[in-house]
């Protein structure tokens, strides 16, 4: 119920007095109300729930995670820990 997914804002406009946007979710475009993110702009990634953008995705924080993971993987490589990679995923959805 509380699921929300990140989409990239491709257009902002107004409808019935409310700030709205079109967001691109990997090629699928949906509209969302942007009233709760007055600072949002085209190009930002927003997390959207029930037709409302509730946060601007903090790309700097996401980048920090990616960097930590890259370091974890390179250390594991050095330590000779076999990584399963795409061929044998340790985790995969059951459908």
């Amino acid at each position, binding site marked *: *119920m509380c699921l929300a997914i990140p989409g990239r804002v491709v257009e902002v406009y107004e409808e019935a007095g409310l700030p709205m946007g079109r967001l691109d979710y990997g090629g699928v475009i949906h509209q969302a109300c942007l009233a*709760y993110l007055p600072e949002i702009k085209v190009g930002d990634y927003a997390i959207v*729930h029930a*037709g409302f953008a509730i946060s601007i995705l903090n790309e700097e924080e996401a980048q920090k995670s990616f960097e930590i993971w890259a370091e*974890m993987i390179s250390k594991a490589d050095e330590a000779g820990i076999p990584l399963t990679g795409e061929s044998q995923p*340790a*985790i995969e959805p059951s459908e």
Partner: protein
Amino acid sequence: MKYLEEFRDPDVARLYLEQIEAAVTRPWKIMEVCGGQTHAIMQYGIQELIPDMITLLHGPGCPVCVTPLEQIDKAIAIAGQPGVIFASFGDMLRVPGSEKDLFAVKAEGGDVRVVYSPLDAVRLAADNPDREVVFFAIGFETTAPANAMAVKQAAALGLTNFSEIVSHVLVPPALEVILASPENQVQGFLAAGHVCTVMGYHEYEPIAARYSVPIVVTGFEPLDILEGILLAIRQLEEGRHEVENQYRRSVRRTGNEPAQAMIGEVYRVVPRQWRGIGEIPDSGLGLQPAYAAYDAETRFKVDTIRTREPEVCISGEVLQGWKKPPDCPAFGGDCTPETPLGATMVSAEGACAAYYRYQGMPT
């Protein structure tokens, strides 16, 4: 999809699992609060991947599941009235009331419509001035800003044919009920990332301190959940009990303040019944007096409703982490997602439904 696939990387998952194994020395019980997290844990088999010493308990964070039977029965009664367009999130349609569900109302000719955004319901009211549009406003704090804006927008457009059945629930009071119980088993929480996106996490700090329980605000992808478990285990092993934020790409300590302001303008904190648990003080939202005109429960006279809950169901114990779904004698037999008997089987995000779907029948 960007900022989604990266959080499912199998190599990083494996390395997190190694870190969790290295960190844990004793048995611990951690509860994930949100039904979306429960669903992901079952979908990706995370329970089976983590060390046996860590038990994941599944919390009450499925608003569809905990919506009280009385509200469902009221919704069904209102939806069946002539002249009404009943709008709801799709998840609510299959939830069984005492006698039937909203799908049955639709099959009997009621005008029940699924909306993705509550603003769609407002649009329906604007487009159908001769009909009454009633929206079933359920959800946790994540959904409250959307449902509040629908009322605000109906008022701004001067619509007199829009109203809501408001059955909102709040997370922190439910955590306190779980922790205050003499039967509590929860030693650490993974808090709900999108609830905290809206509300921030400062309101969890007194709870972590009062009950000496670590609370890690956690996202919904496999790597989020594994990192959340790792952070909670490290706190437990080190004897710390802090509020930590794993879901930093979305959650700030203060949350989304314009959204909180709109919730406060339209709704006020009220006592609320939780299906399977009972009444929890200050655990729900209802309309502010200034917006009382948008209350469907007073606009439509619904006869006193007598609810009937199956006796065999143990969903209350499951919701509080005392029992697991397969402990129930009805699980997978009389109670399935097609014919659910209680709260935790009614929605895909309920613990019983997630077990049934991904673990299959008990052996």
